[in-house]
């Protein structure tokens, strides 16, 4: 049963008793939460807490075992896939093609207008050179991460889902990426970032979502309760 899009919905993402099981292992155990539009959410937690599973479920890559996800007012995630940007831990790019060639191809999938200009713009936004003809396979890990972020931004999405965007990125580049994400949030986009580098997002993220054993255990605008939780372990 699906609900039609409702642009007036207050929450941009609503999770209702979301359960995801892989065989007998429950990666998500009844997650319920509401996320407001135009906010920057940092999803934190230990390895195996369910962060990536939650992000993949939001992206529509894995169907929930039970419960529902409502995004932009609809539970039919495929109908709003053009308004989502997804960046995974792997680059989701073809190693044999240049960054521009990769983005031109993905621009076709999203039916992006004025594709060449848009591709060049997002490549510049992540501080890379659009004229670089080197194949992505020869990029450094940090460059690949930034090109991957450029791919996620290509369709000017309303919701950005980013899995570990700062891993293997040097400190300066990571700070630049955070500034870019904060600017995107200020322009009205809703951003979800799964990361282990919580300190990097202090001052930029609006809410810190702490996950433990497949559940959201706290949602706080301040990083301190999370740090207290970590210290208490």
């Amino acid at each position: 049963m699906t609900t039609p899009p409702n642009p007036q919905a207050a929450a941009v993402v609503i999770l209702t008793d979301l359960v995801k099981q892989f065989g007998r292992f429950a990666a998500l155990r009844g997650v319920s939460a509401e996320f407001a539009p135009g906010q920057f959410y940092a999803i934190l937690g230990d390895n195996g807490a369910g962060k990536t599973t939650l992000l993949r479920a939001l992206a529509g890559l894995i169907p929930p075992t039970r419960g529902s996800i409502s995004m932009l007012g609809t539970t039919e995630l495929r109908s709003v896939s053009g308004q989502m940007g997804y960046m995974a831990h792997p680059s989701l790019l073809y190693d044999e093609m240049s960054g521009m060639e990769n983005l031109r191809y993905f621009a076709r999938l999203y039916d992006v207008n004025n594709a060449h200009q848009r591709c060049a713009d997002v490549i510049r936004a992540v501080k890379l050179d659009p004229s670089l003809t080197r194949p992505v396979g020869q990029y450094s890990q940090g460059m690949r991460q930034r090109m991957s972020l450029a791919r996620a931004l290509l369709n000017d999405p309303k919701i950005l889902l980013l899995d570990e965007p700062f891993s293997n990125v040097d400190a300066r580049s990571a700070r630049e990426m955070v500034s870019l994400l904060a600017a995107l949030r200020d322009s009205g986009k809703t951003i979800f970032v799964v990361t282990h580098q919580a300190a990097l997002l202090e001052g930029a993220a609006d809410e810190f979502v702490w996950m433990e054993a497949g559940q959201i255990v706290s949602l706080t605008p301040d990083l301190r309760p999370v740090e207290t939780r970590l210290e208490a372990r």
Partner: protein
Amino acid sequence: MSTVASLTRATLAKDLRLEWRSKDAINSMLFFSLLVVVIFSFSFDPTAEESRQIAGGLVWVAFLFAAVVALNQTWAREIRNQVLDAYRVSPAPPNALFLAKALGNFIFVTVLQALMTPLFIVFYNLRALGPAYQLPIVAALGTWALVVNGTFFAAMSLRTRSREIMLPLLLFPISIPALLAMVEATGAILTGEFSAKFWIVLLAAYDLVFTIASLFLFGFVLQAE
């Protein structure tokens, strides 16, 4: 709004570009079928008449095995860096991806056939005694039968642990009717002893049924975990 046709073209162009740069599929297919031709020619020493009788079987078995090599390569590219997920989260229709992959494989196998057929003719001293103009029709229909099923089953076995074994296990049994039609039609054209029309019609019907079924089911395969 991008249509299925324009997205198919974009994905096919991307695949051809990747293949042109890596030459993964075409090199392994060529090497493999060259080996088959040479080994078969050492194993049998047929007369011209015997060659005409068995050539249909030899040619199509060689192309079937070589096609499996290409089919495994097609999807391997999409798993590297999990690029397939980028397609899955996009609004692009699954059919465009399937058609592009099937057409890409069709082109690769056709190129292989164009290169290998002269070798078969020389090694087996082949000459068609029946209507030779039917041979390209059989080749096109037979190749499509192999690649349409092969592309579908290669996608299905994508997430299995031993996918390179799984593909032939799934593909070969379901290809038996098509293979039979290809071998019989080729034999009929080469020997001129009987008409190939029934087998060509059977092959066309097989292609139609399996193309429609694959297009219908591919969305489920793509979105499966």
